[in-house]
């Protein structure tokens, strides 16, 4: 900026009004409730202590809430082998347990669709409620669907309050304390990945997973939206997501997209991968592939 060499001497009035504005701004930003997205570290720590205290009082369980930030140099991605999945739904239930999903009403972040082999991936002919005596069923294959962690995420774009966003490691997260429950993100999601707490979520006390993350599996209140976070509480601590760990046939692969030697990079570079609803240009970080 150019200056003309003249400086105006601050008058007492100017000083007073600016100081007042600053103070008001400070009160608004520092003391008021805030989106966790923009909360400074110190405030986040305090917010998390509050969360832990509230869980202790409300649920009678010592829930620890982690505030682990994204790991530099890491962008998570997922790959699912459609030729291996047997449709056993173990991932669904492992996810429910790990991520403290409500048992009543039932919320499940993973939905496994049974599809007919002669139709290919055709959602209009998919059956999410298949219940044969034994899986896999003759003539069927299975497509598990959960949040696709899109690079071009329609859900974060439409949120009116900025309560959902993409973290630096590629995980799309929700601030359960900021979401107003308008469900615009659910209308915007092409994968049915977002779920709403239509009633107060209920989990038996003994089944609560106490190891949580503030943007992930900490218990949610009624009236807000939730979804898969790639098990942020595990993956930011160097572990696999619960669904990857439980899968009995090794269908599910997970890793760091930025690491050239990772399994996920190998799969993307050597296998025939596809993404769901490619034509919508959502650019998922969740890939499907056929290993055999």
């Amino acid at each position, binding site marked *: 900026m150019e200056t003309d060499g003249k400086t105006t001497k601050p008058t007492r009035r100017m000083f007073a009004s600016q100081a007042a504005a600053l103070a008001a701004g400070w009160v608004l930003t520092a003391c008021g409730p805030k989106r966790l997205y923009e909360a400074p570290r110190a405030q986040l720590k305090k917010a998390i202590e509050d969360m832990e205290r509230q869980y202790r009082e409300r649920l009678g369980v010592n829930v620890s809430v982690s505030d682990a930030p994204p790991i530099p140099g890491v962008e998570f991605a997922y790959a699912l082998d459609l030729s291996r999945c047997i449709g056993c739904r173990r991932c669904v239930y492992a996810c429910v347990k790990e991520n403290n999903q409500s048992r009543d009403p039932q919320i499940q972040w993973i939905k496994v669709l049974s599809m007919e082999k002669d139709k290919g991936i055709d959602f209009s002919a998919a059956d999410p409620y298949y219940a044969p005596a034994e899986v896999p069923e003759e003539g069927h294959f299975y497509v598990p669907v959960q949040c696709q962690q899109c690079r071009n995420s329609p859900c974060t774009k439409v949120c009116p309050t900025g309560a959902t966003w993409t973290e630096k490691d590629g995980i799309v997260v929700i601030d359960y304390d*900021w*979401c107003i429950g308008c469900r615009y993100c659910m209308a915007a999601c092409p994968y049915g990945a977002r779920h709403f707490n239509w009633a107060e979520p209920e989990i038996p006390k003994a089944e609560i997973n106490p190891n949580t993350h503030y943007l992930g599996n900490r218990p949610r209140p009624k009236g807000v939206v939730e979804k898969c976070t790639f098990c942020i509480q595990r993956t930011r601590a160097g572990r696999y997501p619960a669904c990857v760990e439980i899968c009995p046939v090794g269908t599910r692969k997970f890793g760091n997209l930025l690491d050239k030697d990772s399994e996920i990079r190998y799969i993307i570079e050597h296998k025939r991968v596809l993404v769901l609803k490619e034509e919508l240009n959502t650019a998922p970080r969740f890939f499907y592939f056929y290993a055999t």
Partner: protein
Amino acid sequence: MPLDNPAQFIRRFLGFARGSVRLILRGNRAYRLWLAALGVLIVSGALAYANQVRNGLALTAMRDQVSWGFYIGNFTFLVGVAAAAVVLVIPAYVYDWKPIREIVLYGELLAISAIMMCLMFVMVDIGRPDRFWHLIPPMGHLNFPSSVLAWDVLVLNLYFLVNFVVATHILYRAFHGRKYAKRLVIPLVLLSIPMAVGIHTVTAFLYNGLVARPYWNSSILAPQFLASAFCSGPAILLVVVQVLRRFTRFEIRDEAIWKIAELMAYAMFLNLFLHGAEAFKEFYSGGQDVLYTRYWYLGLNGHHTLVPYAWSAVGLNLLAFALFIVPAARRNWVILNIGCIATYAGVYIEKGMGLIIPGLTPDALGEIYEYYPSVTELRVAAGIFAVGFLVFTLMLKVAVPISLGEFTEKKETSDLASVAWAGH
């Protein structure tokens, strides 16, 4: 405007308020019955809503598959009503067609009540109404310009404000026996015309912009929203002016009513045409996306809860068009009113349930969940409509006598004097 000192202003305002309250309390038997009926609906709606807040939106029929329903459908319909009521301003001012001018003020009052209902429908739909302030900066955060919902919040509130200022200014001035300030009213009225188109376009874009929902993701949506709004808004207004003409000294020329009915016929034609164009594209091209349109008109895999509604809407809209396009028919009062009711009902069905539900059925992963509003939803919605009608009725009760010159400051003071003198 001669500047009042604060004491004077307060005294004059109190006079206005006192007079208004007296006007509202006075009324014949039909008026009191009407208010009582609205009161019953409001109480029932409030109780149902309290229950919904306590137990969650599980009391509605909405679920993850169909995550928006009756509430958002009503919201969409009423945005149209609010927009169209004011669009009558166009022929009144642009073509300087005097007979319609008298209606404009009532159009604005209708717009105010419709927007109020819109905001209430959004409030009852959200899961955390206690966090509504999260939308309002600086304490909250409005995701503008990324979220179309943020745009909608802005334009709806602005539109409400513009109409509120214009209507109250005109009435308050008239009460004091003065003409409204042209420098304030004319620019605001002119602004309200593009804003009326704007609120409806933005609301259409709310759905239109979602790539996940092919039924909404069609560029015909915004024009079709406007076309159907130009039918439903005037339909209500025509009935209202007939009621006013019957029960008050309010006068409106028959030509004005017939002219509006004629404009409605053109709008209805456009609406039907756009629907037809969309249906042709879906059914003839026969891609995957026809599923949603098929669900609405024909049903899908044995699910056809909504089919009777779809065809009633088509039938009612066709009927309204036929009645309004024939000059002799629309000049017959009975036929005219049948046409108004048909328009209102037809557009209400197609734009409420007919827009929202097929948009979400089948859901993103192909599942069909047949939505039908629950008793809680019906009660809450009836309550909100009752609040809207109550506000509109009370506003008319004050506005009509003012604009007829029956309720003015002068008369108020002389009335008070005579009352005092009579020893009350």
